[in-house]
């Protein structure tokens, strides 16, 4: 049998098995490259206006802080919703303090979390659909290291959610429909539907078969397109 006929046979048969994965790769690949990654990350869901520190708001000194919390680490003085706050960690976890009075703000309550979410959300008047406290078993879109968090779901066609740490008041994660689709696309792209790890055996088998199938396809391209004129009669005869 000729190169042409063999290639045609093997391309046809191999693609019966891996052809669908080619569609999956190209659909998921196209989705991932067309949507801007910053948009996928939800960067456009929030305003990034940190607010300037004002000395008149800082009446609780770092010396006092260390007296109350001698093992404090990673101390940071920053702005939260227009108020100066301290963030720090110690062996008991992360904490948030009012920098004016020194009163402990963490863990923040629901109202406070909603306030932060509204303050940061790109459209401040958007209605909130649901607020929930997550202390364990985080959803797939949230890393467990951020727990505990308040999840604030906004109205809107892309179902945006902001996750706010109850201990620091920081927005630790932002998610929306397109991130969730992207995540699915990625797992289908690497053929690992649980761990999303590209070094799996299934992917290996499919890539190798796909490479072989594509090489036969390349031979067909050569015959069809580049030897088209000289071989036209022959190909017509053989394909009958």
């Amino acid at each position, binding site marked *: 049998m000729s190169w042409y006929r063999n290639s045609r046979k093997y391309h046809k048969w191999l693609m019966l098995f891996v052809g669908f994965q080619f569609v999956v790769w190209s659909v998921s690949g*196209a989705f991932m490259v067309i949507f801007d990654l910053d948009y996928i990350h939800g960067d456009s869901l929030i305003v990034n206006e940190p607010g300037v520190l004002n000395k008149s708001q800082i009446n609780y000194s770092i010396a006092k802080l260390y007296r109350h919390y001698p093992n404090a680490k990673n101390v940071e003085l920053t702005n939260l919703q227009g108020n100066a706050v301290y963030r720090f960690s110690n062996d008991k976890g992360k904490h948030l303090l009012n920098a004016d009075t020194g009163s402990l703000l963490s863990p923040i309550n629901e109202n406070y979390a909603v306030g932060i979410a509204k303050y940061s959300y790109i459209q401040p008047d958007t209605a909130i659909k649901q607020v929930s406290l997550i202390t364990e078993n985080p959803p797939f879109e949230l890393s467990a290291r951020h727990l505990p968090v308040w999840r604030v779901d906004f109205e809107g066609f892309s179902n945006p959610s902001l996750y706010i740490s109850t201990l620091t008041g920081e927005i630790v994660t932002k998610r929306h429909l397109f991130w969730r689709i992207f995540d699915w696309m990625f797992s289908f792209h690497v053929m690992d539907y649980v761990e999303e790890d590209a070094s799996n055996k299934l992917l290996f088998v499919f890539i190798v078969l796909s490479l072989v199938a594509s090489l036969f396809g390349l031979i067909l391209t050569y015959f069809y397109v580049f030897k088209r004129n000289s071989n036209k009669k022959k190909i017509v005869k053989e394909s009958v």
Partner: protein
Amino acid sequence: MKLVKCLHKWLSVLVAIQLFIWLGSGLFFNLMDSTKAKGNENLVSNLAVKKIDHKRLLEPSYILSQFNKEQPQKPVNSIKLIQLIDQPYYLLNHYLGLYQHFYNEHSLVNAYTGEMKTIDKIMAQTLAISTYSGRGNIGVTERISPPIDDFPKEKNIVWRVNFDDELYTSVYIDASSGRVVGHSNDDKRFADFFFMLHFMDYGTLGSFNNWQIILFSILTLMFCITGFVWTLDLLIKGRYKIR
């Protein structure tokens, strides 16, 4: 069906090379050692820190008012107590990027004395050494502006400290904050080359949202769908026969 077949044939000419690049680099990602590809072979995992003498610390509110007096045009968004080479500093943020690798603006102030500190070559080298566990000696040290080949997403000016080890490790230090941007070495550079190919990121912008990949992804999508329809057509016509 004739159109589908015609499209499939001609699209194959257009996407062939890139399709093999995608499959080849995909195979590489499948088989590569992902730990090595991170470039952290010589990265110290736990940085030892000296205890800060709290009694010697200046008050952040004092630092703030001093800074506002000296440089009133620069707003201060936050003051963070950090440690660089056993010395506490207040890290003042003047422009906050959404992420650390986005554009940020910082000042460093000695937390004991209140002196302004600029990260010079010697300090960058000392910082780099403190994160480096390899046996190489320090080579060329340069202050470079983005784009940075080893970290194309980084938007801040960095110090690049090269080491003459077998992997040609480079350590990157954020020039305004002293943050360790990361380590890179020849293992990472080798893997990055395949990422560049897979993402068609020929301008090495560290992104897969470029026009050439969008164009090729759409062509490839059409190529795969026409091929799939062709396969279905063959199935329906009973052309898959086991003899």
